[in-house]
């Protein structure tokens, strides 16, 4: 299922991230788990999909997180973090623009920070 509403959270053992702009930010310590987390920010047509579900299937960081495999979130800006550093990115050719594809290695969370403008405007009109 695809979600586009802002503030939608997904959590998984492995996330597939796809975007045209990827920024790895400086790590921090998660207060809840005490683990070092590696935050990221994706921009320009970002997408995150749960590739592997958490085991046990219980949200670790956010109670409201969606945990089902293949759940996809799309937005203008998606941010989140992983408990392991991000490896090399793959460049994929989808139509005219080249995108980046990243597979997170550890437990990860992604969240829609800014939704697509067209969708937001459509919502405002309603």
């Amino acid at each position, binding site marked *: 299922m695809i979600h586009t509403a802002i503030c939608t959270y997904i959590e998984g053992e492995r996330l597939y991230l796809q975007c045209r702009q990827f920024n*790895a*930010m*400086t*790590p*921090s*310590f998660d*207060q809840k788990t005490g683990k*070092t987390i*590696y*935050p990221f*920010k994706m921009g320009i047509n970002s997408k995150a999909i749960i590739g592997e579900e958490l085991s046990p299937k219980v949200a670790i960081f956010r109670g409201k997180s969606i945990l089902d495999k293949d759940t996809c979130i799309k937005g203008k*800006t998606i*941010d989140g973090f992983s408990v*392991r*550093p991000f*490896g*090399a990115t793959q460049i994929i050719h989808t139509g005219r623009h080249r995108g980046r594809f990243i597979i997170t290695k550890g437990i990860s969370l992604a969240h829609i*920070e*800014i939704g697509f403008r067209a969708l937001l405007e459509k919502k405002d009109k309603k």
Partner: protein
Amino acid sequence: MNNDWTLEKPDTPTPPSLDYLIRVYGSSEDKDMGISITETVKFKKHFDNVYDRFNFVKNTLVEVILSQRRSLEYNGFYNAFLMGQLPENRFVKIAKRFAYRPRPINNKLLSIKINILRDATNIDYTPSELADIFKCNVDHVRTAIQSISNSSKSLEVL
């Protein structure tokens, strides 16, 4: 120059009970002059406020500069890791050196800092970026941003 006209503390340990500043103004052509009298304490307090505000803005901008510097240095190591120059275990050790523990920050103070940054740079920072800059929890940033949009009063600096 007579020492009476300076804002320096008097040598006496107890402050004087009477302390005023007198301003004489007017034009030399008309020889029309006016005098205004103000308490030195009030006058000094005004400049203290200006100084405090300036210092707060300066400290906020210094925080941003330090964060950008930290980020640049971290990205240097991250690039080395991506290029295979650093193995993951070594990179993780280095990354932990850069990792920050989110600190508790007053909501009003944070919203003022965010406002200063927005006014000075005109950049739309995302909450995660602001959390990284001010080394705080992203939820606190969201609350601070919400309070900015809810109340125009919090836009006033100090």
